[in-house]
């Protein structure tokens, strides 16, 4: 080219085209930053939301947050775009056709009068949970909780000790050796920032780390790749390997416990797991070499949980600890669903959860993940669109309480399960009222601290109103650290083998049926992750 004219013309067209009417322009308006807690899952990480013109335009972590410590999962960074996801539910649907809230309420009222209703909650302990439970009691129905994999992994201890699963947590900060049976500790397990920050400080890049992470998993996962030791085993052989380890713990006197003896012999465990007897022996010695030790399963597995009993990791620093004396045990949902007339599923229940029933299903969800049976699909508020409180995270070792107010409004007529039920029974309490009561309860205890821009003891607050105001503005109340509360965990015989759960990571365990659109950067525009199977995004 001898003349720059064509290039200049192209350049001008480019600049001109940037101002075409259909090119999206960012929102104009005052910019402010608000603090709250993430509501994508039950872990309630601290978030700061950049708002422009009243709309959320960016999400970041809160460095001062006592649990998440400024870190978030990848999804949270694109969560503010979720409310405009193409699969957002905007209208009531009844068996694939459009319906109305009035029709849905009439149908649910009719079901309540005709038989038992079951209400399913995926995030127990919230103010909304109390209201759902109250409604279930008033109409002689059942309120049940659908636990996450992390909560299911703690379930065996409830059975053995009588302490509620949601009262238990992992004292990771005091552990020196963490043995993970496939739990994605560095890939969205529990409150993501809690373990990743701990690992980064105490283990990352160190040949002799302060915290030893041993990952037992068939494949070299993200967590296995960063672990101090990776022990590859055969798919589904976690129970066999835990039996083998238990045999050696008892046989070599590595633990003080003398029973229960596992059902498998060491040779059988080695054969089933694909790990040689010598390697199992070496692993067992390595595990006990640096106490305190805690073993973490990725889902309910009593045989893996039994290792913690043998290792003395129950009610001990660096092990499984009691964080709350107030928690109520959750009840399994499967036993009651079968005979129900109707099942109401709160939007906090993972989309993948499908109740096996012929009952009429009323399902709340902000996003439609497709391929999931529900007679009524009811559009629920999306990210930051509803007021909720955030009780203690499932794996946390200390009690916490926070409030996540509605920071933005939905452009369509959405309702949560509480608003829906309040339309049927106007005597139900409001979420605001229950949050107020909980703040009063905490305030009158005078224990714990409030993490705001500064950390203040709760006793410094002049009134419950001031305390509640600070929570509404993004502060978090943190209880006292776990004391040496002892509880007995009886295990008279080795647990029966269980079927292994499918592999987990954040693309599968997140409660909502869709991912933020920008998550495609990870699994579509790079080779970092496999596309989330079965998700319709």
């Amino acid at each position, binding site marked *: 080219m001898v003349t720059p004219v064509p290039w200049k013309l192209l350049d001008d067209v480019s600049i001109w085209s940037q101002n075409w009417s259909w090119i999206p322009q*960012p929102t104009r308006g005052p910019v402010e930053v608000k603090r709250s807690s993430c509501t994508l899952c039950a872990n309630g990480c601290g978030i700061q939301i950049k708002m422009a013109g009243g709309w959320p335009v960016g999400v970041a972590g809160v460095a001062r947050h006592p649990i998440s410590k400024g870190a978030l999962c990848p999804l949270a960074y694109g969560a503010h775009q979720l409310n405009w996801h193409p699969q957002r539910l905007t209208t009531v649907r009844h068996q694939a056709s459009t319906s109305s809230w009035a029709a849905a309420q009439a149908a649910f009222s009719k079901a309540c009068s005709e038989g038992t209703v079951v209400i399913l909650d995926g995030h127990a302990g919230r103010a909304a949970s109390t209201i759902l439970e109250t409604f279930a009691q008033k109409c002689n129905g059942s309120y049940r909780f659908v636990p996450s994999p992390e909560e299911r992994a703690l379930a065996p201890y409830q059975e053995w000790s009588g302490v509620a699963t949601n009262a238990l947590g992992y004292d990771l900060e005091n552990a020196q050796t963490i043995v993970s049976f496939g739990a994605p500790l560095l890939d969205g397990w529990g409150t993501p920032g809690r373990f*990743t920050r701990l690992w980064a400080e105490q283990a990352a890049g160190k040949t002799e780390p302060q915290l030893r992470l041993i990952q037992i998993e068939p494949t070299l996962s993200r967590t296995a*790749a960063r672990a101090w030791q990776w022990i590859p085993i055969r798919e589904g052989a976690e129970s066999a390997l835990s039996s083998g380890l238990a045999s050696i713990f008892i046989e070599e006197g590595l633990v003080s416990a003398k029973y229960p003896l596992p059902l498998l012999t060491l040779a059988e465990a080695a054969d089933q797991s694909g790990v040689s007897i010598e390697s199992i022996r070496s692993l067992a010695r390595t595990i006990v070499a640096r106490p305190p030790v805690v073993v973490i399963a990725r889902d309910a597995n009593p045989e893996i949980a039994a290792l913690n009993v043998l290792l003395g990791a129950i009610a001990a620093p660096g092990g499984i600890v009691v964080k709350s004396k107030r928690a109520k045990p959750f009840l399994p949902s499967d036993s009651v669903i079968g005979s129900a007339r109707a099942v109401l599923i709160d939007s906090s229940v993972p989309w993948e959860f499908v109740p096996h029933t012929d009952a009429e299903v009323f399902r709340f969800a902000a996003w439609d993940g497709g391929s999931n049976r529900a007679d009524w699909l009811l559009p629920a508020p999306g990210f930051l669109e509803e007021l909720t409180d955030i009780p203690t995270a499932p794996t946390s070792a200390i009690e916490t309480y926070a409030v996540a107010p509605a920071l933005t409004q939905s452009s369509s007529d959405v309702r949560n399960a509480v608003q829906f039920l309040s339309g049927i029974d106007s005597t139900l309490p409001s979420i605001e009222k229950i949050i107020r009561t909980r703040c009063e309860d905490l305030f009158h205890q005078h224990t714990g601290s409030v993490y705001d821009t500064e950390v203040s003891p709760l006793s410094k607050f002049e009134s419950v109103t001031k305390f509640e105001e600070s929570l509404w503005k993004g502060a978090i109340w943190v209880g006292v650290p776990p004391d040496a509360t002892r509880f007995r965990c009886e295990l008279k015989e080795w647990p029966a083998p269980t079927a292994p759960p499918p592999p987990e990571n954040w693309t599968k365990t997140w409660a909502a049926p869709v991912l933020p659109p920008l998550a495609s950067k990870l699994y*579509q*525009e790079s080779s970092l992750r496999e596309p989330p199977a079965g998700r319709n995004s």
Partner: protein
Amino acid sequence: MNAGYGMVIDLDRCTGCGSCMIACSAENNVAPTPQATPRTGITPILVRKVSNRMEGTARREAFVPILCMHCEHDTPCVKVCPQQAVEVDKATGIVMQMPQRCLGCRYCMTACPYHARYYNWWDPVWPAGMEKSLNPGVASRMRGVVEKCNLCHARLHSAKEKAAAAGKRVIEPADYVPACVEACPTGAIRFGNLADESDPVYHESRSPGVFRFLARLGTEPKVYYKSKEAWVRELAEANSGRGAEAKHG
């Protein structure tokens, strides 16, 4: 004093979670393009998975975030751009890309030794209503231009405005942190002024075990990496030629 903003990325801390990639795209208004592939998508920071190519228990993997290295010397993309759409900001050391000047010839993409530049194949389109979630500090770029990391230049502007409002001429380091650095859950990505001896990143970039990819090209990239894993360092040396780093001290 002129700044020389750069990074030190601790590969031993990177878990490959990808938070940096999503935070970067959200901050810089990169549109979600359902049709995009690894070849056609826009990922100003891209985490690549590398391995020691062994199998079984001997296999090791690491994650390497790749972004514009903001080359300081003979910056290849600057040299080939016919439109002067790329320039090195002498005040900050940031290699700036100006989409208004870019005509989309993609010479710079060819010239970039790190493949850290991306062509904008499509008009920026968001699902209906999602434009309300765009960051007001960053304009969306038109189809047909090249994109890359600019170290979240909008955040630098905000920091300068804040400093000016306070009557200061120098920004507070805490006020200017790129989105990827802020989002990294393990603190693997550290950002700072490599020209400032009081900055911790200055010293970290000169600590043992620190290396740069393709250092033998002599472009003085301002993104440094570190790892205690010998095979990771050997990977970089295989790229950059043995002893190349020694020349750069």
